[in-house]
């Protein structure tokens, strides 16, 4: 942590970067810190409680500006950064990525190649909560699942916190704002809510890195992160993608195999 602070301060002082995005102590849990001068670098922290996905900020032009900037990234953030890179949203020249590895050593990534090499050693695992919830859902009959989700969806009031929290929801105009045609009704209602979340899930196929940010962000606690996570878990292997390891070219949906499953096609 000390090293991290020093390095951040140094980077800012020598003007290598204009901004360091990291974590600082918050009231309940660590919160993002946007550090533009070396004094603030002292506030930086980096530990297991820092899971808030900072990648969501790296695509915000108004925030990061034109100069080079740095971000201190835990695994989840690193994964998102890789995916963003694959989707042409980041450039190595503009972004410096720092992390602290398991041995507490400060790691600095210049290229995205290095990041993917680093990330490769961590496999995605379900946390206790996900495990519990998903086994519950997987255990349900279809009707039960429908009732369960409709119940959940009836709470959603379309605040789109899930969207704002997701690093991969960087579209300047989201499909829900498209009104010619009005694909998804703007008001909250179970169906239009579900349409929104199915739509999210479809847009996340082969992209979601299961950071769980969307779920954390939901003010009414709908476990929406499970939808995208389950999709990722079920489909990534089938489509020959490693969860959390973005493919260099395209994604699960924009590519195909001659022998893709088609028993369901009559």
């Amino acid at each position, binding site marked *: 942590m000390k090293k991290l602070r020093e390095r951040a301060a140094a980077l800012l002082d020598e003007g290598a970067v204009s901004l360091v995005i990291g974590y600082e102590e918050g009231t309940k849990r660590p919160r993002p810190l946007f550090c533009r001068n070396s004094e603030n670098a002292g506030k930086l922290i980096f530990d297991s409680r820092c899971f808030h996905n900072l990648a969501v900020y790296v695509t915000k032009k108004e925030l990061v500006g034109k100069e080079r900037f740095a971000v201190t990234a835990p695994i989840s953030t690193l994964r998102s950064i890789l995916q963003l890179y694959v989707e042409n949203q980041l450039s190595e020249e503009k972004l410096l990525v720092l992390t602290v590895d398991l041995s507490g050593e400060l790691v600095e990534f210049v290229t995205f190649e290095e990041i993917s090499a680093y990330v490769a050693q961590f496999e995605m695992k379900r946390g206790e909560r996900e495990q519990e919830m998903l086994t519950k859902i997987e255990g349900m009959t279809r009707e039960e*699942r429908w009732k369960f989700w409709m119940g959940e969806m009836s709470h959603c009031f379309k605040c789109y916190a899930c969207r704002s929290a997701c690093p991969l929801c960087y579209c300047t105009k989201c499909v829900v704002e498209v009104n010619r045609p009005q*694909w998804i009704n703007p008001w909250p209602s179970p169906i239009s809510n579900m349409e929104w979340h199915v739509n999210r899930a479809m847009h996340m196929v082969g992209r979601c890195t299961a950071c769980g940010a969307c779920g954390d962000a939901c003010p009414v606690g709908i476990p929406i992160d499970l939808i995208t996570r389950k999709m990722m878990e079920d489909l990534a292997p089938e489509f020959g993608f490693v969860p959390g390891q973005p493919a260099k070219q395209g994604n699960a949906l924009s590519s195909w195999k001659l022998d893709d499953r088609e028993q369901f096609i009559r």
Partner: protein
Amino acid sequence: MSNSNEFEPKIIAFVCNWCTYAGADLTGTSRLKYATNVKIVRFPCTGRIDFLLLLKSFAQGADGVIVSGCHPNDCHYTSGNFHARRRWIAFRTVLDLMGVDIRRIQYSWVSAAEGSKWADLVNNTVADIRALGPYTEYQKVADYLEKEGFDEEA
């Protein structure tokens, strides 16, 4: 064709222009008969078919949906149907997770030469959906706020 009190499912068919639409034309030219429940919407290619359209169909009261295009390797655009196939695999996975009744979406490959296959596909699908009954489970919820009269049990 069917007695009036029997449930007449409302089914929309999303088909590609080059294989299945032409196949359905052949069904006509060969004067093969099938149920009137299915109405065809024409697309350039299955690759064009947006999953949201399928979703909207149910919300708007469809009881079933047919999606059909060229057989693998026959795609007029070489790979549109392969992309579509992937999209459908994913789409089915989400829908199933959400508890949507995926038996109501019938996918198929019907080539321009398979006029009879198209007739069979329609008739079988109509029969299947009729057996499943109207998709009230979905429509009830859909009616909530989209239209008046919210039904508690949904």
